[in-house]
Every structure is written in structure tokens, then in C-alpha cells.
């Protein structure tokens, strides 16, 4: 098992700071990386994978800078980018063989591993189909397969479940969850429920900074007492939407059931509700951290 240590990590592109002052240690287990679009999740992942060079700060793997480890570090790594390029004329089988060659896997090992992974991602029947004929979900699945080719001890997945249907999502959640037992999995997603089900620890990013790093209960405790449920007349909804952060809205005849995240009681008849991860996420994003 390996340990990644990030110290004062910064990344600036021209005049935009994508990641600022991130210091955190990652060990084995599944880490859910949450944040809005543009929060810096992908940049952070790319730096952890060695794709991008940090503007300042260090990333150590077991105490050694990852740049210094070079190929040794990349041997440990499995990465699924948010949008990955592929040669459209390649069949699924050839693409995986090509990736296995890039990962320096021996031919025999690659053969058996590819068959195993095609089975895992349910693409055995399409193994000889060209990638250009694949749907978005199928491409995602082939992407997950290539990330797992070298049985990585550090697995970085950028939006792995986007584009997958609910059944596939559940299946992948279980796969990722089981992978996290004895390796480090960093999973970036917009889907809070994915993180809720499988992540041991949650990293919450906003405007390039890390707002929270810890387990779910700690994040939930931040929003404790700030989640309310109430039934309001439809005419009042717009006003409340302007004043408060609405987590959910559901119509019940002439009235609307609202789930409101607010430090104060937002409506006279509002009742406190149990905090979910989604509420805590919204609370932290709205009320904590910095704005650029």
C-alpha cells in the first residue's frame, strides 16, 4: 500500500489559479473528490498522475517526489481521464492491447487480463467492434478497463460513472468499492450519491482550495441543524429561492415541499430534517471557502 502526500500544492495557468495551497495525505481506501465545475478537481488529478507539473508544492509517494520516481510511479498508476482520446479505427481489443504495450505489460499477462476486464466491463461481445461505433457509456467502460489493466495500486478516476446507465453505475460503484480495500482510489464526480455509497473519505474542493478532507460524518456535522423541510404556498417559492439555498423542491397540489439549507429557520412552519451528504455538500459550497 502506498501513501501520497501533497504539500502546499498550487497550479496556476497564466493568471488563473486552478489549485491553491492543497496539503493532504492520501492512503489506501476510496476518496471521493467533490466540487463544482471549475473547482480544480481535474487539475488536481492530473498533477497527481504526473501529467501536469505543479506551479509550486510537492507530491510525494512514500516519501519520494513522483517526478523522481518516473516510470516506477507510473507502473502503480491507473488513470481514467474525464474525456480521453482514442484511435477511432481501433477495435476494443486492439485498444486495450495498445494500452497494455504502453504500460509495458508482458503479452501473455496482457491477454488474460484483457479478457478478464472485457468480461468485467461487459464488452466481451463487442471486443472486435471498432471504437467509433461505441456509445458514450461503452467508451467509458473501455476507459475503466484500460485504467485497471496493470492492476494499479493508485487508481485515479475522473467522472467514471458519467454516461453510464443506472444499472452500470451501481455495478461500477461496487467494483470501485471492492478495489479500494487494498489500494488508493481517488474518484472525482459530480454525483454525490456515488461518493455517499463508496467513498471512505471525502475531499471537497471549491475555487481550487480544499474545503474539507475527512470522513462523511465530519462533513455531515458541518451542516447539522441547517437543513429544514417545509410546505409553502407556491407563490412563496420564488421569494424563498432568492433568499435561501433550496436543496430540493417537490410539488404537492397547491403547495410545494421545500428542502432548505439555512442556518436560521427559513419558514415559520419549517421543521429540521436529517442531513444528507448532498445537503452538506451544498452547505459547504455555498457558505464556506473563498470566491475568486
Amino acid at each position, binding site marked *: 500500500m502506498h501513501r501520497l502526500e501533497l504539500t502546499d500544492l498550487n497550479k496556476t495557468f497564466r493568471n488563473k489559479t486552478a489549485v491553491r495551497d492543497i496539503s493532504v495525505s492520501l492512503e489506501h481506501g476510496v476518496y471521493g473528490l467533490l466540487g463544482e465545475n471549475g473547482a480544480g478537481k481535474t487539475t488536481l488529478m492530473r498533477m497527481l498522475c504526473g501529467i501536469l507539473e505543479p506551479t509550486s508544492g510537492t507530491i510525494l509517494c512514500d516519501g519520494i517526489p513522483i517526478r523522481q520516481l518516473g516510470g516506477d510511479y*507510473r507502473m502503480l498508476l491507473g488513470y481514467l481521464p474525464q474525456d480521453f482520446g482514442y484511435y477511432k479505427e481501433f477495435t476494443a481489443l486492439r485498444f486495450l492491447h495498445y*494500452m497494455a504495450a504502453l504500460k509495458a505489460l508482458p503479452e501473455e499477462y496482457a491477454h488474460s487480463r484483457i479478457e478478464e476486464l472485457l468480461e468485467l466491463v461487459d464488452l466481451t461481445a463487442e471486443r472486435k467492434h471498432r471504437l467509433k461505433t461505441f456509445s458514450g457509456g461503452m467508451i467509458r467502460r473501455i476507459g475503466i478497463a484500460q485504467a485497471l489493466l496493470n492492476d494499479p495500486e493508485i487508481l485515479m478516476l475522473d467522472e467514471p460513472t458519467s454516461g453510464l446507465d443506472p444499472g452500470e453505475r451501481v455495478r461500477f460503484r461496487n467494483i470501485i468499492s471492492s478495489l479500494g480495500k487494498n489500494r488508493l482510489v481517488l474518484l472525482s464526480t459530480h454525483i454525490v450519491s456515488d461518493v455517499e455509497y463508496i467513498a471512505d473519505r471525502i475531499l471537497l474542493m471549491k475555487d481550487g482550495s480544499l474545503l474539507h478532507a475527512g470522513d462523511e460524518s465530519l462533513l455531515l456535522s458541518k451542516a447539522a441543524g441547517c437543513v429544514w423541510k417545509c410546505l409553502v404556498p407556491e407563490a412563496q417559492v420564488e421569494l424563498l429561492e432568492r433568499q435561501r439555498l433550496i436543496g430540493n423542491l417537490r410539488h404537492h397540489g397547491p403547495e410545494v415541499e421545500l428542502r432548505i439549507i439555512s442556518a436560521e429557520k427559513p419558514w415559520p412552519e419549517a421543521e429540521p430534517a436529517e442531513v444528507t451528504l448532498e445537503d452538506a455538500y451544498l452547505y459547504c459550497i455555498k457558505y464556506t471557502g473563498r470566491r475568486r
Partner: protein
Amino acid sequence: MNRHKNPNRKRTADKKGFRLTQSIQYSDHALKSMFTAADALLPIDETRRAGTCRLLQHEFRSRTVRPLQDNRLLFVSLLRYTDRHLPCLHLLGCIAMLLMLLTMSLYFPTPQDAGVMVFASMTLPCFLVFFSVFEFRQICFAGMGELSKTCFFHIRQLAALSMIFSGILNLIAVSAAIILVGRQWKIRLLHLGLYVLVPFLFMQCVCFGCMLLEKIRRHTWLCAAFLLPAAVFCLAAFQRPALYTESALFFWAAALFAGIVIFAGEMKLLFAKLDKGEILCTDWN
């Protein structure tokens, strides 16, 4: 994981019955600064430090037992599965260029046609540069770059491999063109070599210069729009008869040297940018 937790420590009752209650609160940052300040006073033996780093790396390697292919087999399997469309097109391009020169030699066989043939042998190899650029572009900027930078066989190595392959192919084709034209029209090979290599290198510099510019790199058509005027300029510039006298040879040699220096500089910049990684993934969030 909770890095924000502040340690509260209470000391109570020493042996003399003197009660001391002290609450010390340090933030992580303050503690870190204190450790850094204390560490700064320690003398560091650079030799021992390097030795420890080597030991750590050895330890790291011994723990990462992974099936790894040897270099020869790795190269073979890479060649087996890599995309061969563009290299094959490149090869066809080289053959087509030589065939064109051969066909022209049938239509312009007399010594008076030497000028036409020299100009043709200067122009046609320039088109081979496009294949080199497209091969490089496909490896680095067609979306696979980001993924292959996380693999054992690195993007830098892939790009270098592509450059070496297309370079060898181009050199063979250009050398064949020089020998073919030089022999038939009795032109000194050294002179003809300079005449052919200078515009070839000029186009190579323009093409790889385009690869350094973000906007042009991303759009094939913008790239072509830049290259076409460069090619026309090149053709127009080399049509002056004064350039082909003995005394102008120094100019050709100087131009070739400058071209080599510029090209090497561009390559260094491009590979440095590949290492930095930003050109492999332009969306920054």
C-alpha cells in the same frame, strides 16, 4: 485526516503540589513553521542525503513487484498494436515523391532541364514534412497524449519514436531524390544536398513552430493556412538564379546551419512543453 484539529494539552499537579494548568493551542501551520525553523539549524550532509534517497527508491522498487516486459519485447508489441495509418501514408508519400521525380526525369531529360529538376527536387520533399507533423500531432494532441503520459512508456518516448521514424523515412527519400537528380544531371551532390535540405528544413521549422502555438496547434485548417503562404514564400524566394552560383554556396550552408539550430531549439521547447503537460490538456479546470 482531520488536519484542523488543535491539540489541547493540560498539565496538572507536579510533585511539589504546585498546580499548573496550561492550555497550549497550536495550529498545524504554526507547528509546521516551528519544525521548519528547527530543521533549518540542522546541518545536512548532501552525500548522506543522496544515499538515503537512493535507498528509499530501491526500497520503493522492491515493493512494486509488477510484470514488466523487457525493452525489446516492449518495442515489438508497441509496433504491433500502434496505429499504422499515418506511417503507412508517409511511406506512400515518399514513394510517390520519388516516382514523380522519376516521371519528370523522363519528360525533362536534357542538360538544359537541370534547373527544372533541381527546383522539383527542392519542392517535392517539402510535402513530406506534413506527414511528420501529422504523425507528431496524432501522438501528442489527438487526445491520447494525456492518457499515455500516465503509462510506463511515456509520451516523450512515443513522440521521440515518431520523430525518429519519420525523420529516417524523410532522410531516405530526400537522399534518394538528391542522388537521382544529381547523378542524371551531373550536379555535385553536396550542392544539390544544400539546395534540397534548406527549403525542407525551412518548412520543418515552420510546421513545428506552428505546433508551439496553442491556437494553430489545435486546428488543422489554421495550421494549413499558415503553411501554405510559407510554402509559396519558400518557392518564390528560391527562384532567383543568383542563388545557384558558386559564390552563393556560403549562403546555403549558413541557412542550413541556422535551420538546424532553429529546429533543434523548437524541438527542445516542444518537448519541454510536453513534460510540463499543459499542451496535452488545454481545459484547465
